[in-house]
């Protein structure tokens, strides 16, 4: 695409053209080419569909599109055919031709290959992932046709920055990166800060191991993130944004690079956006394998090219962030909600979810679940609904044991807490956190002591080393775990674990240390008998522990 200067009305025109263009097609085959499906052969499947459509002579009425992830990653490669959202699972190049022949040519969906699990989508509410699996993330026109960039047009044409912040505040949106800070309030703080220039940092570090929600969003709908950044920039008066992404996500990086280039080419980013004089540009910055870099002061250090060590607050980034200037740090999922709020109004958004936690949340559902994948649910849904209705329960006839919410610094919650509504405050109350959106299901083959040890090891590796509790404390906890899982522990060790855990939680400088003991403290709270069993009877009911030693001997 050549660089062209468009104005506000042109976006609407592109949308109309694109819709007309799409209307010419009777069918649209969406092949998921996201990171989950590519290793399973999605690109070959895509090619097979393109060939089949040509060979069977239906290319005029059937469009084959390369899309992002519809969420059912465990049964990939996944292919969705519109209209009707028929989702095919485990598609192979051989099956592609059959699907085109039956579904497109004859109009008969191939029942045996369809994804049968209706419950998976039934309880979901896909707002942030509205376009995921339906548009080609590499074509900005696809996004615009779905109403994309109409929100920034609305802001530029009819709203003041204060008006935008007011809508966001009304919506009740809270940060999706973990802490749940009210987004509108944060924007207000940065907007009111005096010094200039101001910056935006979009956080796509997603360091929680076992979470892929942000990556999937970026691969499926990169422009939603960019539009969110644009609106935020307009509201707070920023001219420059950095999108910080982990380097472990090559496909997401490519997708975003392309999206940024396309947005620049039609003057949606740059010095004179849509001929309104509004100026904003986005630059990518790459992480390098440090979980703590996702912490808000550490991410600033990292963008500035330094060691990602969290620093004390105050000063808060809203007043003194990048290079000492006011900076808005926002998770990319938070940002992707923004265009919807502007289009439909804050009041509309505030009615979704619960009164204190509005909207939806994306979760990656993994572990011992029948339907692993990426889901988006309204806030306030119960854990049981997520694990059993959407996730389909535990496979292989095993028994549910616990669910891990919030990544390595989350909590392990037992079956008695399954009725708990998923929202920031309820989770915090039981010792877990929302985190950036990981739900891992454990069955009776998982050992809770081993699980807590695993998370502690992760935090030991990822501690930045600045403060005593986290650096010098977690390692001692890990050693005690080594003792417990190798048959070399005393009952008093449990007290030491508890004491040290509480100390690290209360005394650490940043969120990593403050939440790192959560897995230890929650397992001690809900599964103490397993600890005692390990220590007193040297028995692991899951059969995981007491192994390493024998092997080494």
């Amino acid at each position: 695409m050549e660089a062209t200067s468009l104005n506000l009305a042109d976006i609407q025109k592109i949308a109309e053209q694109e819709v007309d263009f799409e209307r010419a097609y009777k069918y649209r085959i969406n092949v998921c080419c996201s990171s989950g499906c590519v290793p399973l052969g999605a690109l070959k499947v895509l090619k097979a569909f393109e060939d089949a459509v040509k060979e069977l002579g239906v290319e005029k009425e059937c469009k084959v599109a390369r899309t992002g992830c519809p969420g059912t990653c465990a049964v990939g490669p996944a292919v969705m055919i519109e209209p009707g959202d028929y989702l095919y699972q485990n598609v192979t190049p051989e099956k592609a031709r059959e699907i085109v022949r039956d579904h497109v040519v004859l109009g008969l969906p191939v029942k045996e290959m369809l994804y049968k699990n209706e419950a998976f989508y039934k309880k979901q509410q896909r707002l942030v992932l509205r376009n995921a699996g339906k548009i080609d993330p590499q074509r900005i026109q696809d996004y615009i046709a779905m109403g994309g960039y109409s929100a920034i047009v609305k802001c530029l044409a009819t709203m003041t920055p204060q008006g935008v912040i007011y809508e966001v505040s009304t919506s009740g949106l809270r940060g999706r990166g973990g802490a749940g800070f009210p987004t509108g309030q944060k924007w207000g703080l940065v907007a009111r800060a005096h010094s200039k220039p101001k910056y935006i940092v979009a956080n796509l570090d997603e360091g929680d191991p076992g979470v892929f929600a942000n990556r999937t969003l970026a691969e499926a709908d990169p422009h939603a993130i960019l539009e969110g950044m644009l609106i935020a920039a307009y509201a707070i008066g920023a001219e420059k944004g950095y999108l910080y992404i982990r380097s472990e996500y090559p496909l997401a990086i490519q997708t975003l690079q392309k999206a940024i280039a396309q947005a620049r080419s039609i003057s949606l980013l740059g010095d004179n956006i849509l001929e309104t004089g509004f100026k904003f540009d986005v630059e990518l910055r790459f992480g390098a394998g440090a979980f703590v870099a996702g912490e808000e002061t550490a991410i600033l250090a990292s963008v500035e090219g330094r060691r990602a060590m969290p620093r004390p607050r105050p000063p808060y980034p809203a007043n003194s962030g990048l290079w000492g200037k006011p900076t808005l740090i926002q998770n990319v999922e938070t940002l992707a909600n923004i265009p919807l709020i502007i289009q439909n109004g804050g009041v509309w958004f505030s009615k979704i979810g619960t009164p204190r936690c509005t909207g939806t949340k994306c979760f990656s559902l993994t572990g011992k679940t029948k339907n692993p994948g990426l889901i988006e649910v309204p806030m306030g849904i119960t854990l049981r609904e997520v694990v059993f209705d959407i996730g389909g329960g535990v496979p292989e006839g095993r028994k549910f044991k616990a669910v891990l919410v919030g990544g390595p610094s989350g909590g392990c919650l037992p079956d008695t807490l399954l009725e708990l509504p998923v929202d920031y405050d309820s989770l915090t109350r039981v010792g877990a956190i929302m985190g950036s959106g990981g739900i891992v299901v454990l069955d009776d083959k998982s050992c809770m002591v081993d699980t807590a040890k695993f998370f502690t090891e992760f935090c030991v590796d990822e501690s930045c080393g600045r403060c005593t509790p986290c650096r010098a404390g977690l390692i001692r906890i890990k050693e005690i775990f080594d003792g417990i899982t190798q048959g070399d522990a005393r009952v008093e060790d449990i007290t030491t674990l508890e004491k040290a855990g509480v100390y690290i939680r209360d005394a650490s400088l940043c969120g990593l240390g403050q939440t790192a003991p959560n897995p230890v403290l929650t397992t001690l709270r809900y599964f103490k008998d397993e600890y005692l069993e390990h220590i007193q009877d040297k028995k692991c009911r899951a059969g995981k522990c007491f192994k390493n030693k024998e092997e080494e001997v």
Partner: protein
Amino acid sequence: MSTDDKRRLALEKSMKEHNYEESALLEILHRAQEIYGYLDKELLMDIAQSLHLPPSHVFGVATFYSYFKLKRPGQHVITGCLGTACYVKGVDEIMRAIEKEYNIKRGESTPDGKLSLLVTRCIGACAMAPAIVVDDEMIAKATKEVVLQKIKEVLGGDKPESR
């Protein structure tokens, strides 16, 4: 022009693009690793001087982030994901099998430099856990047998020296 000069030129170009700004250190380390495969001390000193940064600062940054490699990696690199989802699905057992088969520990290379075994924390393929990457190719829903077979294939018959 020798390969060395060409690489140096490519690095210089990247630094110039960033106006030799201090804040571009991470981008430049990324680029340097892309060009050279790993970051040795000579290279780090070169970068420090070009960006007018204290050498200890550059070394501090390069070693803080685990993505940067300061040693030459093996010819073939196996990376096991030790993220939560993969751990729950038993990646540890696969890793142990590799360790045993090739007498190599996580984070190390065989003495002849043929094979490196690395760990990472989540590559975002959690729904298809466990995930193991053998030379840029990801094996989803990996099992011991498949992984060991694959490693054998990439090594092409010659078994690396063990200690």
